[in-house]
């Protein structure tokens, strides 16, 4: 299984973390610090796998962001590389040429996307189209509800003038 997902910038800033195994707050900070040190210092030609504490961490760099996923020792590393790419492509489709700034200001949306791809550290959906469809459907639900709410508050605001 995937134990956690980590998105860190080149400067070591954390953009997204998702934990599928129990780690306390303190442990999480420690893990992030260790892995940042380990991964950010690796050269570009080296392989995308790092052995760490008996686990394997698969990472790939996309522009200024490192996407890292920590897996168990007996998992398929090449597949996880594909899962990372799957995630990035879906984000790209959703945000339209996604860049780091998108993920900073719309981090909650990035989480929504991730929750449609992974649950319990396992892959949920292999079709990018399906994921996009589901997210869009939920977004429109939210939009609709917001419109309804704003129209009501409009009415109230006007009524109380």
């Amino acid at each position, binding site marked *: 299984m995937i134990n956690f997902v980590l998105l860190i910038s080149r400067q070591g800033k*954390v953009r*997204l*973390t*998702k*934990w*599928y195994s*129990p*780690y*306390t707050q303190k442990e999480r*900070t420690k893990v992030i610090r260790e892995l940042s040190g380990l991964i950010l210092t690796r050269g570009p*030609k*080296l*392989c*995308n*796998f*790092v*052995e760490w504490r008996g686990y394997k961490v698969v990472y790939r760099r996309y522009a200024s962001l490192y996407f890292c996923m920590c897996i168990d020792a007996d998992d*398929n*590393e*090449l*597949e996880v*590389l*594909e*899962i990372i790419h*799957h995630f990035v492509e879906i984000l790209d489709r959703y945000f339209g040429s996604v860049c780091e700034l998108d993920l*900073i*200001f719309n*981090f*909650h949306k990035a*989480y*929504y996307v991730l*929750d449609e791809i992974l*649950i*319990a550290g*396992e*892959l*949920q*959906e*292999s*079709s*990018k*189209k*399906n994921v996009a469809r*589901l997210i869009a*459907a*939920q977004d429109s*639900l*939210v939009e609709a*509800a*917001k419109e309804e709410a*704003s129209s009501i*508050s*409009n009415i109230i*605001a006007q009524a109380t003038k």
Partner: protein
Amino acid sequence: MDLSINPFSSGTRLRDMIRAIRASKTASEERAVVRRECAAIRAAISEGDQDYRHRNMAKLMFIHMLGYPTHFGQMECLKLIAAAGFPEKRIGYLGLMLLLDERQEVLMLVTNSLKQDLNHSNQFIVGLALCALGNICSAEMARDLAPEVERLLLSRDPNTKKKAALCSIRIVRKVPDLAENFMGSAAENIKEKHHGVLISVVQLCTELCKASKEALEYLRKHCVEGLVRILRDVTNSSYAPEYDIAGITDPFLHIRVLRLMRTLGQGDADCSEYVNDILAQVATKTESNKNAGNAILYECVETIMSIEATSGLRVLAINILGRFLSNRDNNIRYVALNMLMRAMAVDTQAVQRHRATILECVKDADVSIRKRALELVYLLINDTNVKPLTKELVDYLEVSDEDFKEDLTAKICSIVEKFSEDKLWYLDQMFKVLSLAGNFVKDDVWHALIVLISNASELQGYSVRSLYKALQAYGAQESLVRVAVWCIGEYGEMVVNNINMLDVEEPVTVTESDAVDAVELALKRYSVDVTTRAMCLVALLKLSSRFPPTSERIQEIVVQNKGNTVLELQQRSIEFNSIIQRHQSIKSSLLERMPVLDEASYLMKRAASSQATVSLTKSATTATPAGSLKIPNGVVKPPAAPLPDLLDLNSDDVPVTTSATTTAPDNFLQDLLGIDLTNSSTAGGAPSATTDILMDLLSIGSFPVQNGPPTTSNFITPGQVTKHAPATPQVMDLLDGLPSSTPLPDENTAYPSITAFQSATLKITFSFKKQPGKPQETTMHVSFTNLTSVALTDFMFQAAVPKFIQLRLDPASSSILPASGNGSVTQSLSVTNNQHGQYYKLMCQGHVTCLSLSGGPWIWA
């Protein structure tokens, strides 16, 4: 999160807060922004402000991601989840997953909301609940809500189904007992067409198999056919844009199914046979120019290696392996090394063929590849290739990076030790490793080396000369210095006189003074470590006895440490100085060659020392199963000088063995193991805890196998002269023990009396009498003479015999041994051998008290 048109809006937009935080130049500025925002959010929460709940929750999550505490927001999550609308639930569940984890008790409060949401009519809300449950539920929640999830697994909506399947995975992980509840629905869902559902359900099946044997059997029976069909369909399918990755349709599904096939086929011939064809098809048809294809091939090979595959299939797998290994892509090579580890179990020959490539990988630029390759090399080592492979590794050790050196050194040392029958080779390798990477060599490794050197008398000369040479060149390596200094101290005369030269050696010209120089240099310049310096001092002391002309010079060197701030060194310096100056008479016997360190007991101690407990009260049961002990080196040697327990509270006890050995080596072995020490002392009252320890130490062969680690957590430390036992176990005290047992004549071949033991301090003689007509009975008179100038009081003598012997010990004539041989104490004992003709060993020990050399009383046994 747009600007609300409400004129009463308070606080900033999410976007603005993020901007403000990013714009902060210092940490305190950021803290100020965060503090302000938190205050606003706290106010909003306590007022129950409905309008900006989303925004506030989002802000809270961002602040949490920065690392600030956000506990006050947890209840707000719960409230949002309990709200009616979808948007609130959505952000509420996200907040829950981010701000809480399964260990928090607050989580339990959500159970009810979750239950309601799992039964909601809106499938997206159901989805939210399943997602949250699947990501962070605890074991209790899992148990509570499992029935709901089971039901949802059978829903019509594929989105719900797939989420339910993954949620079930977490439930089964937390509560494996529930596995059987899910297996029926899981097997049913294999027939689905939706890929998302299939991926999730197949993964669920794999998890179920891990959790429960019953589930494994069930799924094996019901799913294999379906799996083969799925794989066949997806492999043969035409281009499907929705699932296509690099020209392959849904590689994820391929891989999941292959993994499940592995779990089901492992150990089951029928299942393996069934999947044979499809595996062959996947292995041959899959394109391997892109990562997706390689991922599938990787999984396929792993599966083939694990199930009961046909040889044709295995050959296919090994070919793929070979291709991967020579691929230029680092990822693929890494993965290939992984595959090779698994292939070792299946076809060692095939792996051996790739030995050269693997060795290349050990030197690769990528540290991950190097580590994998090194592990693989270690597995590949066998008797035929151990020498060339070790040579390669040692050569590489010279040029490898510092951080890799440690792993490499550890591996080389364990390889060399495992194949250490060829002692010369072992010594050569160890000397090289010590020279190149001595600082990384662990203590027990060089301890073992010393044990071996002390046993291999024909190689001692070679060892000490090689070490002397190495010391000149590689003095910075701590362990090398220690081993070298110890050897020079012990076998100094071999260096100087080129004793026992081997054919491969060239003679060295080393004078006594050179040898002392070397040790002095080690003491003063190279080593910083206290242990090493302590060892140097001891070595110098030994040399002062071996090379008498250098004695004065050595004294000068030793004296320099008299004022050393480290207590250990100061103490040694003063004591050794005193020995050199004033105790010429006993010095040589004090510093005789150390008795051979017993390898067998060292090995057992080493194995047991990992438990790292020191038991002062040893159990008296010591019967060892006969086969468990091998006496290495085939040397029938007198038992080594008894080993005082450094951590023993009565550290003053330094027992001396006297024993009569038999001539027959096998009987020696047998008797060693046959001794039951509970019968041992018939005199001297109940054995105290100390005595037990001493007893056990005497019977080298009778180490209990099951427990009771030997009393020294260090390895063998020979006896000490003084009563000042160092408290730190890792300091190896290398002083020779009291004179080791001199070779003892056999008592059984003759009736003439023998001198069982003689040293500068004590002489013990045995005389024997057999009564005519009672050949089984032997009466012995033991006579003790005290040769020191001090009277020895509280004399006590004990003896131990095997079970089939009866021993009767008469009281001694006196408990005081008068000084300077003015009279002796006698004691008689009578021994009856029930198995007349059977050799046996008599083991004895004695205790005395006398005044110490430096004025205080000490117990000397």
